[in-house]
């Protein structure tokens, strides 16, 4: 995967000059030409709905025997509905999937195994990197195909950096991060925010991941990493340069519009690269992107490319070949992706990426070149999180808040996460 993307981006210009011939994708008949109705569900906003619907129409034109019943909903409610449908065996044939939920759905055998369709060529993965495919695989089988790439990143406010007269490097160490935070606060009064996303990165830095390969326990033997994390949270919370926990309730960092970076309450925001357009346009100014900070003694580069979202087939679908063929079309067809415009993240298929790389706007260019930089150093992404990881996530969030308010010591918080988390994972493994 390394280097490949940068090479592709370089090739893009060349290819665009060569003026691609009208795509000669051969249209194979699906479902033996028999009429069939495919239910497809996704979450998203107006733009995504419009673009996706257009691509469905395109597919219908190529395969007139396939009609779609769309079930677009808001993110709010999507999972409640999908869970209800799963519990009542009425899931849509194709559904959009999130990185954090793959494990839970896999544990209950709700997703269709796509591997046979990769093997028989229905899904063409030749231009998709193995790392990307692995992000949607469990036990060596492909269940979810990635729709767009993404990378964790640290957004920073360029104006604040300029005002403080500080140069922003591509990647900071944590010591630098802390001293810069202090300096910025002293010079400009703008604060800093550290959140629980950091935790996963600490694991990566020492060359492991939060969860063991089989998902039945943590990827570490003791709570040292958790201690480091909660100590960081506690140390930062004591400093005047760190935003107060009260303010974090007001300026909820999980909602784009209220993120503390938007109104320059803070100079930073831990997030993902595909949020650049959203956050910049909400803030009304261009933000900068850095890779995530590293510990001075880290053994491994923490930065990685990750999947923003996937398409999955339902395990109970009556038309697995149509599902596979459509997912292939959606991910690998240049025509389809010229319509989709990378709205779900940087395309994973190199030919699609090349075709899309021309005609990017300025913000997208920044994002694509950031992804390109990351790609030069990226280490493989983590396995999909296991069943029970959401519970542990909630626990970490709760304890992080308690540490910020000084309700619990970092040591106790770490011990609690490790003990309760291990229990949750063991329970779910049964």
């Amino acid at each position: 995967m390394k280097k490949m993307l940068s090479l592709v981006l370089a090739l893009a210009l060349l290819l665009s000059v060569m003026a691609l011939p009208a795509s000669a994708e051969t249209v194979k008949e699906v479902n033996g030409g028999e009429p069939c109705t495919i239910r497809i569900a996704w979450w998203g906003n107006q733009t995504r709905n419009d673009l996706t619907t257009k691509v469905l129409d395109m597919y219908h034109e190529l395969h007139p025997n396939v009609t779609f019943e769309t079930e677009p909903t808001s993110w709010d409610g999507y999972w409640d509905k999908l869970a209800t449908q799963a519990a009542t065996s009425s899931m849509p044939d194709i559904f959009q999937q999130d990185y954090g939920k793959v494990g839970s759905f896999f544990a209950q055998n709700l997703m269709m195994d796509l591997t046979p369709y990769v093997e028989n060529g229905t899904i063409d993965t030749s231009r998709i990197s193995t790392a990307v495919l692995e992000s949607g695989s469990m036990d060596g089988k492909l269940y979810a195909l990635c729709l767009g790439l993404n990378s964790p990143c640290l957004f920073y406010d360029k104006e604040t950096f300029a005002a403080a007269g500080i140069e922003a490097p591509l990647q900071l160490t944590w010591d630098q991060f802390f001293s810069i935070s202090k300096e910025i606060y002293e010079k400009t009064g703008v604060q800093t925010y550290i959140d629980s996303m950091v935790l996963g990165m600490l694991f990566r830095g020492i060359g492991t991941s939060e969860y063991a390969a089989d998902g039945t326990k943590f990827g570490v033997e003791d709570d040292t990493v958790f201690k480091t994390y909660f100590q960081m949270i506690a140390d930062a919370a004591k400093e005047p340069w760190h935003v107060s926990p009260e303010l974090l309730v007001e300026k909820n960092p999980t909602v784009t519009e209220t993120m503390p970076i938007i109104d320059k309450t803070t100079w930073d925001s831990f997030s993902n690269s595909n949020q650049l357009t959203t956050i910049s346009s909400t803030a009304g100014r261009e933000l900068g992107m850095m890779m995530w900070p590293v510990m001075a003694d880290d053994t491994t580069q923490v930065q990685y490319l990750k999947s923003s979202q996937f398409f999955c087939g339902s395990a109970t679908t009556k038309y697995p070949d149509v599902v596979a063929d459509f997912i292939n079309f959606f991910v690998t067809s240049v025509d389809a992706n010229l319509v989709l415009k990378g709205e779900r993240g940087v395309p994973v298929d190199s030919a699609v990426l090349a075709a899309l790389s021309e005609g990017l706007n300025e913000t997208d260019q920044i994002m694509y070149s950031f992804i390109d930089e990351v790609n030069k150093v990226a280490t493989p992404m983590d396995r999909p999180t296991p069943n029970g990881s959401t519970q542990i996530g909630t626990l970490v969030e709760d304890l992080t808040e308690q540490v910020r308010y000084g309700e619990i010591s970092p040591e106790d918080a770490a011990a609690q996460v490790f003990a309760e988390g291990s229990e949750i994972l063991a329970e779910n493994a049964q």
Partner: protein
Amino acid sequence: MTAMPQPRRAKRKKPASLSEFLCRESVAGYMFISLFIIGFLVFTIIPMIASLYLSFTNYNILGDAKWIGIANYVKMFTRDSKYLKSLSVTFFYAFVSVPLKLLMALIVAMIMTRQSRVTGLYRSVYYLPSIIGGSVAVAVMWKQLFASDGVINSVLQALSINSTKSWIGSRDSAIWVLILLTVWQFGSSMLIFLAGLKQIPKTYYEAATIDGAGKVRGFFSITLPLLTPTIFFNLVMQTINGFMVFNSGYIITQGKPLNSTLFYALYLYQKAFTDYDMGYACAMAWVLLVIIGLMTALLFSSSKRWVFYQGAR
């Protein structure tokens, strides 16, 4: 259930015709409530029993249920401190917000009975908050009002009270911000009070005026007693709603800070649909049902002492 009409002697004759049969009190009673019974049996009782069964299982919503006996119930009260927190938050919320809201609704309803050309407009204005209560706009707005740089603090500063407190971010005040939101939405209770006031025969007031009773005495000796069925209704309903409160915690604070606004129903929802621990959520639901049931039973048994029905002899 209280102060029911005296039983009348049902005629013990053999039914001469269908219409006579249908006119027996007990038969007519079942005829009137038959719709409810059908609906209850078809749509409600099975789900209720199912959820009771599931409360004794380990049920990951996406998979199968495994019988684990009373383990969910035991865990709730012995090992889940977050659960106990949500319980105390909800009790506090219900006991504070319900009386405040009803008092507000009753006072405003009394004010709204005053005749004027713009009364209709006033009523609409006071009812409007209830219309938009659950919307995102209110959530955004409400948060903004009580932020550290929000309108409330600006007003306080104008009154030369130096406040930069984050009302929504402090663990001791966040719940009050949500209580205030509930009290602000007193419109529905107000409307029911208005309907209740309208039902009081004017002749009673006329008689009282002749007797030389003033407005205040009129209120306490006529309005209030005759309004007790309405007050009772509002009290029962708001108590039930108070214990089941979900929306404001969900859209405004997500239970923060430090779980100080973690309502029972919100925690239940998170268990069911974030953790997919539906068995546990069902167990929580049945404990909630018992709690609300007890509160309601308590209110009903107290009502014999203070609720006055004209329809009773």
